[in-house]
């Protein structure tokens, strides 16, 4: 479904990604794990078109995204829940959801998706008219996910959805991610919480200073000596 090949990305002189290659197949949850500054966010930004790709290619559903613009990529069914949520704090919850559905032109389908979002996130329904900046951290993360679902994506990129949340909420968010996957969306999950990410993923890639250093079945990686030492605290 998504095929990233030999991706090179620079920030000025900083060579942030070195020939990063990986693949996500339809229906999977794939996780990209790695330490701070490994290049996880950079990888997702490159896929979504937020930063230019110096070399290599990104293919999604047989289309070349290497030079595509972010708003065109969303239209193809590839959505992105960015790191740090980045909800529109100055807009209401309802308006945030509307922005999620920005590219769509099927009022009937959009209406159905509001219902889907409200069943999945009842807390958001209660706060529709509220300005999003006043939501709690957990609610903001739910809104960030809900907003993305409003584009009816085939593939969802998620960047550290657990960041800054209490353990109980993290569990809730991960349950939601599993549900979203079960109802048909493929997921590429970036996490620092490697253990949790590996527990719900089918496959995983490990990034280290801009390179893919390990890859494989999520269960196997979770049990491998190397990964345990480096990312799972023993």
């Amino acid at each position, binding site marked *: 479904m998504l095929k990233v090949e030999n991706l090179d990305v620079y920030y000025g002189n900083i060579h942030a990604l070195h020939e990063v290659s990986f693949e996500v197949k339809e229906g999977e949850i794939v996780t990209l794990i790695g330490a701070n500054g490994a290049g996880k966010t950079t990888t997702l930004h490159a896929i*979504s*078109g*937020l930063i230019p790709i110096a070399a290599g290619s990104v293919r999604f559903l047989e289309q070349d995204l290497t030079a595509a*613009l*972010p*708003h065109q990529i*969303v*239209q193809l069914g590839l*959505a*992105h829940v*960015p790191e740090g949520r*980045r*909800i*529109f*704090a*100055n*807009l209401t919850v309802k*308006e945030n959801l*509307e*922005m*999620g559905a*920005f*590219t769509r032109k099927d009022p009937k389908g959009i209406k159905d998706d509001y219902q889907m979002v409200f069943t999945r996130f009842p807390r958001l329904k209660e706060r529709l008219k509220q300005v999003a900046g006043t939501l709690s951290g957990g609610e903001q993360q739910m809104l960030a996910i809900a*907003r993305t679902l409003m*584009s009816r994506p085939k593939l969802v990129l998620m960047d550290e959805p657990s960041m800054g949340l209490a353990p109980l909420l993290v569990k809730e968010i991960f349950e939601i991610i599993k549900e979203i996957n079960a109802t048909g969306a493929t997921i590429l999950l970036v996490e620092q919480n490697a253990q949790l990410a590996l527990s719900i993923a089918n496959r995983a890639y490990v990034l280290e200073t801009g390179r893919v250093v390990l890859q494989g079945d999520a269960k196997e990686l979770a049990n491998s000596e190397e990964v345990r030492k480096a990312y799972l605290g023993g």
Partner: protein
Amino acid sequence: MDFLQQFCQQTLNGLSLGSIYALLALGYTMVYGIIKLINFAHGDILMVGAFVSYFVLKQWGITPVTLMLSFLPAMLFCLTLGVTMEKLCYKPLRNQPRINSLITAIGVSFLLENGARVLPMIGPNPRVFPTLPVVNYNWFGLVSISQVQILVFVVAIFLMLVLNYIVSFTKIGKAMRAVSFDKGASALMGINVDRVISFTFVLGSSLAAAAGILFASAYPQIEPYMGIMPGMKAFIAAVLGGIGSIPGAVLGGLILGVAETLTKGFLSSQLSDAIAFGLLILILVVKPSGLLGKPMGEKV
């Protein structure tokens, strides 16, 4: 005229002048909200709007109907000019340090002013803007309101209501607010950020064109530099109200207009500009984010 009468009259005059500042300030504040640029050429759009209307009225003759109709070509011409300006001059500099586009904006302003001076059809000499015969209406023996002032209020309020509707309730208006808050996240929603920025220039430039016609109707002498002072005042109004805030721009414009006419009426006309700039300094010291500005700034 006793004091109360004089006070009410000057306040009314100030609100009328302030409405024009407000229309112009809205453009400053929206453009700033979305690309963090003080568009110094914005005042000159007012001048261009006035001239387009001038040429139209020369052709058609001045009647209330032609005057109202002349808003259309003036606004269309200016929004095209505004969008072109953004595409050619500001867009290529968007990822560069902000000072670059600021200097470019000053350059664009000089270009428009001096371009108008060398154009044979405009030229450096002032021209008389066509006006309707003056009619004054008296209200309770307290104030008299001219039909130009009525025109200013009606047009300004109408345009502000339209703007408010667009920004609050339409899809593109919501996208404007989203883009002003976070461009990257907006792009991830599928919003074409470039198009939203262009649309912001469309709105700002059309309002400036309307402000130009109103300004020329109130002060019927037009020349290439006529946009400088109202441009400055509108900029001050935008900062006063909290740059990036739409209600702030309206409030700032009205305050500035009233302060100016009251100073003219009760102190001296020389002082009125000093008061305007004094207000700017005062607000920057006391509340740097402006009257309705948020400290970190919710924009648009």
